[in-house]
């Protein structure tokens, strides 16, 4: 056994030995397990955008980009292993795409001086940059999603939710539990009744939950689901003939994978998003020319243009722009994790910038500051058209109810700061 450990140790050293002079963006992806349907398109989009930058521009600021991929299977233990095995390569930023792994990594990245971006996931109170120095969650977070969902429902109901019943179907994990506090506050503010319906991992069996919904007859259902849970929920909702336009998923419950299996019955299902949908952007022409047609796509290359592929593109675009910002601030091209953090903290996404990148009107405008690591919280609603098999934006980007969310963020981040004796960075 001693020998076995010895060989492994040597192997580990060889694997973890640093390779410098590249910009390293590790991709902690999951292409296996019950969440692979969501993990694959995101990982493909993330890798393809960097491939495009390498092929078309020769990287960022003349530095080539490397995207080492590590399979986490949405499992926190494997996520930690992936983090430890890639951080030595000069990793610039992590995007684990898993709230569980995010919670593991928040203290670790802070200690190792590597930033982490958790767009639309992770710990919501990480928006408070004063406490969470290395964690960013722009442009929107779970609580923004909950608030905008309620806002959209209010619009549908003509401005009042008095006496209405709203059910929350959620993944019974750190991720799914995130919006509960916010929705409770909102239910007090707007006078609706909130029903919490948990679904345990992985969520393939939801008969009893939907029976409960059928009995309670809520006016609206909000869903915080991921992976195979989404498809099952949409199918079950169709089975009990729940009106699809009153069923609203968070952005992790709003991709093609989730609705295609229910066929025409899923028509009208709504989901939130913090970026635009479709593939009608100039960037896609470049992607086709430099990546798709040359056969350099990641994975099978069959995900191009899907909602989660777009999210991968968007995630890669945000960190690429942050890296560019960091290069400008520090005047060097070969940046470190700490410099990357500064770049993310001073990132500004404007309409001109997005248009110049070939992604006009792709997401909300926002700017990051030391206090605010989470952007302004603009979220839009999309709706599934089962006949055309596409998602369409059906609302403008609306801002979440900051009066409700900001005190909650302050409270939760203060609890974290007290627990870990953090004095503040700003």
């Amino acid at each position, binding site marked *: *056994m*001693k020998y*076995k*450990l010895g060989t*492994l*140790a040597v*192997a*580990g*050293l*060889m*694997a*973890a030995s640093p390779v410098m002079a590249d910009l390293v963006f590790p991709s902690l*992806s999951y*292409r*296996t397990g019950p969440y*692979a349907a969501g993990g*694959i398109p995101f990982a493909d989009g993330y890798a393809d955008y960097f491939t495009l930058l390498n092929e078309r521009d020769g990287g960022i600021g003349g530095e080539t980009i490397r995207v080492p*991929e*590590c*399979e986490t*299977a949405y*499992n*926190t*233990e494997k996520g*930690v*292993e992936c983090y*430890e*095995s890639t*951080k*030595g390569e000069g990793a610039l930023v992590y995007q684990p795409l898993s*709230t*569980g792994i995010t*919670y*593991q990594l*928040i*203290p*670790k990245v*802070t*200690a*190792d001086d590597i930033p982490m971006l958790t767009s639309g996931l992770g*710990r*919501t*109170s990480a928006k408070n940059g004063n406490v969470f120095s290395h964690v960013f969650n722009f442009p929107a977070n779970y609580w923004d999603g909950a608030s905008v969902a309620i806002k959209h429902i209010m619009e549908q109901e003509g401005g009042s939710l008095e006496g209405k019943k709203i059910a929350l179907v959620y993944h*019974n*994990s*750190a*991720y799914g*539990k*995130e919006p*509960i*506090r916010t929705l409770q506050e909102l239910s007090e503010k707007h006078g609706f009744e909130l029903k919490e319906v948990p679904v*345990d*991992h992985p969520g393939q069996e939801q008969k009893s939950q939907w029976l409960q919904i059928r009995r309670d007859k809520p006016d609206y259902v909000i869903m915080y689901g991921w992976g195979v849970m989404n498809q099952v929920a949409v199918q079950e909702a169709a089975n009990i003939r729940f009106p699809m336009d009153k069923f609203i998923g968070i952005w992790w419950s709003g991709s093609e994978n989730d609705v295609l299996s229910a066929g025409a019955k899923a028509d009208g299902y709504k989901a939130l998003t913090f970026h635009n949908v479709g593939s009608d952007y100039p960037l896609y022409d470049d992607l086709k020319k430099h990546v798709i047609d040359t056969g350099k796509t990641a*994975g099978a290359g069959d995900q191009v243009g899907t909602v989660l592929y777009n999210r991968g593109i968007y995630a890669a675009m945000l960190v690429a722009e942050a890296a560019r910002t960091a290069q400008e601030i520090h005047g060097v091209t070969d940046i470190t994790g700490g410099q990357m953090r500064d770049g993310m903290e001073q990132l500004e996404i404007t309409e001109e910038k997005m248009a110049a990148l070939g992604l006009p009107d792709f997401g909300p405008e926002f700017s990051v500051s030391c206090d605010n690591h989470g952007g302004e919280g603009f979220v839009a609603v999309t709706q599934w058209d089962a006949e055309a098999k596409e998602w369409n934006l059906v609302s403008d980007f609306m801002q979440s109810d900051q009066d409700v969310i900001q005190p909650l963020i302050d409270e*939760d981040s203060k*609890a974290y700061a007290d*627990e*870990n*004796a953090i004095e503040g960075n700003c």
Partner: protein
Amino acid sequence: MFYREAGDFNTSYAQDQQTFPIKFDRYRYYLVLFVAIFVIPFMVNDYWVNSLFLPFLIYAIAAIGLNILVGYCGQVSLGTGGFMAVGAYACYKLMTAMPDVSMFIHILLAGVITAAVGALFGLPSLRIKGFYLAVATLAAQFFLVWLFNRVPWFYNYSASGQISAPERDTFGILITGPNTDAWATYMFCLIFTVGSALVARNLTRGSVGRKWMAIRDMDIAAEIIGVNPLRAKLTAFAVSSFFIGISGALFFSIYLGAVEVGEAFGIQKSFLVLFMIIIGGLGSIFGSFAGAAFLVLLPVLLKIVGVDWLGWPTDIVAHLQLVIVGGLIIIFLIAEPHGLAQLWRVAKEKLRLWPFPH
């Protein structure tokens, strides 16, 4: 040739009954301990510790615990994940309630609390056996996970329902939280692993262990010769849960740092530890180590070979890993149903006679 007994005379009962009666074996054991204590801590970095050593050491404790129950006392249990969760949550509550107390005491207390819970869930074992007992412990697994998800007191009312370990030290050295040194967490777990193995080894070859084995081999016969089944079974559950609780507490506080009960301590954890002892060898302390090493290190090794050396896509390697680990389990069960420990025993016998087997 190797393992020569010639000239190796035992002149007292103590010498005759020690764990490693053969001199060569004993020196090899001392060498392993020496390397583990005086060499590895000076060479490790974060990657080695967090990816290899910590999971290996912690799972070894869990495997020892389960081996006592399943391998020595013959009571099949599928509640390991739930009992690890008890250890983790006990440790979390103790850590946050009493920040100034040393982590050593918290981990041990977490083990004691788990022992009490384990003994409670061991009560049905007095009436039911075999598969039916497995189902009863399965109920414990699901009940405990549900409990920790349901009652906010256990996770101190945090918004996400996760528990995360605050920074704590022992003798002034940080051992939980992100700013720890690799050697400190390694040594902390090593102390518990070595301690657990020593205690378990000595329990299992003493009168307590003999009673467990008597119950395992035939409970009616054991009762006739004067073994109290109530006491034997409940002590097996308590001792087993004590070790599993310690491993759960270490798993949460030292290794992961933040835990979500359904994901970290679900049913798959119970099966993982059960596989460890089946592959390693039922009723063997060495088997617990061998099984833990096999199931912790093999996936990492396959990943390094597949992704880092051969450059294959990560999903193919992840799927291959399932195929290879599954295949190896089947091969082991057919070729050597008594596990790695038996292979080791056979190898030792052969080496003892080599090169003159007749």
